[in-house]
């Protein structure tokens, strides 16, 4: 009996410790707002607004990608401190959150729909239209009037939804093509004259394939649409019309681009395993192992390849031209949560972090700013970075309709897979896909 009673006592003590200890001790430099997050059952109640004698202090909760604020030495954290010094009545709490569609985006949606949520978040460019259509982020068109023309067209598209501006673009990451210069030489190609047209790209890929090695690769795990979009636009094709109500990817130009990229699969210029690859790691590693000689990727792969100390000479070149040059845009935007305690303070922060002085923060992460004056970034002197920075002017964003994800994963990618797996007729499959996409677009 005594043993049981003492066990029960210990157990209840631990329970009490769990209730009290956790919230209170949750403070560290990165995120100590655990204590203030009580209730949240009514909107606009997620942070305390504490009164002090000088004036009102606003505390903002800001979500950042985990790796951008891993410790106090992070350039982003330094910038935050500079902001707080310049704005003594605004305090910012970074909450590093794990990047991922379900671990980041869905967590945000759940929290906002639950009545709470952070004040400001970094958002992947492709999530913004969805978040805007759900009402989980705030429009800032009026506030941003003064700074709008400081950013490139493509990145601005990523924060525009139904004519309203929903955030400020921060990072722009276009794709270009990485290539193995030594393999080029071995195949009789000139590494200083990389392919500039489709024909040249195709011929290079063919020359580079053989002996267990392949000339090109893409991330085919879902279907390969992200890799295909540059080619669609290079051919002069379009995904949707200007209003976003009709799908146009069964046009002759679109079919041409499908035949070009996925024709390379049929010609076995692309390793079969690429059909399952879902991460940049696999492409980077295949490149590093010498399995593939060329692949598309963004500036993010520069870090991985540089730290891998590859044994061969490699470089980057701009996306080739079909009818024109084009590439696809990824990146980060800053957006304001719908349940923010102070939209003006929140806007102040995002205008601050996306201004000219703070461009260097991105440079330190080896990322490209979405600003028009990004040519002044210190990384511009790196010839490989220059390729990406120059690519922004012909980089296009994905459509700003909230059903893009649905169309992409449920209609477009399956269509591309059918063409690759089942050798389906391209025109027919794309026609069918356009029909399905139109249904989704009109239902929205």
């Amino acid at each position, binding site marked *: 009996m005594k043993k049981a009673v003492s066990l029960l006592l210990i157990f209840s003590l631990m329970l009490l410790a769990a209730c009290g200890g956790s919230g209170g001790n949750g403070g560290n430099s990165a995120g100590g707002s655990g204590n203030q*997050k009580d209730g949240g059952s009514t909107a606009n109640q997620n942070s305390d607004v504490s009164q002090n004698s000088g004036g009102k202090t606003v505390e903002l909760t800001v979500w950042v990608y985990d790796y951008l604020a891993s410790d106090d030495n992070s350039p982003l954290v330094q910038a935050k401190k500079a902001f707080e010094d310049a704005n003594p009545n605004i305090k910012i709490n970074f909450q590093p959150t794990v990047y991922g569609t379900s671990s980041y985006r869905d967590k945000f949606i759940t929290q906002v729909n639950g009545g709470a949520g952070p004040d400001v978040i970094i958002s992947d460019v492709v999530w913004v239209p969805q978040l805007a259509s759900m009402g989980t982020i705030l429009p800032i068109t009026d506030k941003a009037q003064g700074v709008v023309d400081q950013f490139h067209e493509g990145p601005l598209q990523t924060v525009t939804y139904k004519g309203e501006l929903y955030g400020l673009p921060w990072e722009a990451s276009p794709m270009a093509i990485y290539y193995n210069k030594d393999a080029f030489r071995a195949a009789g190609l000139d590494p200083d004259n990389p392919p500039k047209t489709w024909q040249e790209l195709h011929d290079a890929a063919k020359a580079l394939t053989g002996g267990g090695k392949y000339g090109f690769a893409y991330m085919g795990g879902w279907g390969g649409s992200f890799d295909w979009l540059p080619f669609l636009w290079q051919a002069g094709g379009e995904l949707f019309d200007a209003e976003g109500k009709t799908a146009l990817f069964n046009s002759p130009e679109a079919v041409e681009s499908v035949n070009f990229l996925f024709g390379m699969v049929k010609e076995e210029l692309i390793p079969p395993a690429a059909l399952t690859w879902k991460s940049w790691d696999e492409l980077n590693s295949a490149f590093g192992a010498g399995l593939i000689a060329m692949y598309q990727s963004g500036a993010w792969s520069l870090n991985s390849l540089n730290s891998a100390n590859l044994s061969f000479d490699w470089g980057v070149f701009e996306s080739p031209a079909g009818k024109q040059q084009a590439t696809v845009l990824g990146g980060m935007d800053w957006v304001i949560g719908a349940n923010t305690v102070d939209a003006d303070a929140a806007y102040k922060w995002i205008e601050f972090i996306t201004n000219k002085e703070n461009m260097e923060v991105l440079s330190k992460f080896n990322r490209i700013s979405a600003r028009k004056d990004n040519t002044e970034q210190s990384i511009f002197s790196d010839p490989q970075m220059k390729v990406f920075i120059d690519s922004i002017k012909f980089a296009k964003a994905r459509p700003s309709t909230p059903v893009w994800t649905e169309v992409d994963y449920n209609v477009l990618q399956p269509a591309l897979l059918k063409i690759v797996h089942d050798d389906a007729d391209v025109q027919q499959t794309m026609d069918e896909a356009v029909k399905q996409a139109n249904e989704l677009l009109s239902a929205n």
Partner: protein
Amino acid sequence: MHLLMICIVFVIDFPFLWMLFTSLKPVGETMTIPPTFLPRSISWDGFIRAVDGNFAQYFINSLYIALITTAAALVLGIMAGIGFSRYRFRGSRGFQLGILVTQLFPLILLVTPYYVLMSRFGLIDKHLSLIITYCAFTLPFCVWMLNTYFHSVPVDMEESAMIDGCSRLGAYFRITIPLAAPGIAATAIFAFVLAWNEFIFANTFLDSAAMRTLPIGLRTFIGQYSTEWNVLMAASVITTLPVVLMFVFLQKHFIRGMTSGSVKG
């Protein structure tokens, strides 16, 4: 016999060994073509970087959440298990089945309702929200399993103890529960592992970095654009082995095997 077991263990633990060796490989050697099994040179870089930073904090967080969840689930589960196996009251069959029904829901759809619930009680960013959630997930199973194990302990044992002057509750404590020890230990390991490895709810309910549990910590090694495989695998080894060792330890001390000789007739 040993040879057979070693073969079985090798085949089944092959992925784990693969993971272990990857954690000992230097960065450049992790994803190679063709793949290598054993590392060419041992590098502790993976482990060093895995425990860098807040990892120890995540470990402690996960540990005490898992321990409390297990304790709570066991206490409530043992009570209910004894209640259902030793007593017949109106609706008991219905309740038992009702408990099973709670397991039927796809977990991913429960995230938002649970978040709203925890939010109303001010439990967001507190570990208690997870303890309650994990208890709710494991309890049905614990109740049913313990119910089944208690059923296998004959009622006569308690009755003979009571004849010897023991109270009913005393009989439960001294006879029934110890006899079902293997089942209780097995149920405990189940509850513990569930709380230890759960990610979605932990990630949604916890905001501050210091509150994180191990599964969230693991995900931070999976970057947006690239993953440090040796670090991730090292962290996984650190996440997996302690639990296994704990189980082996529990086995030795908790389970004395059958209590042969105490049951006659």
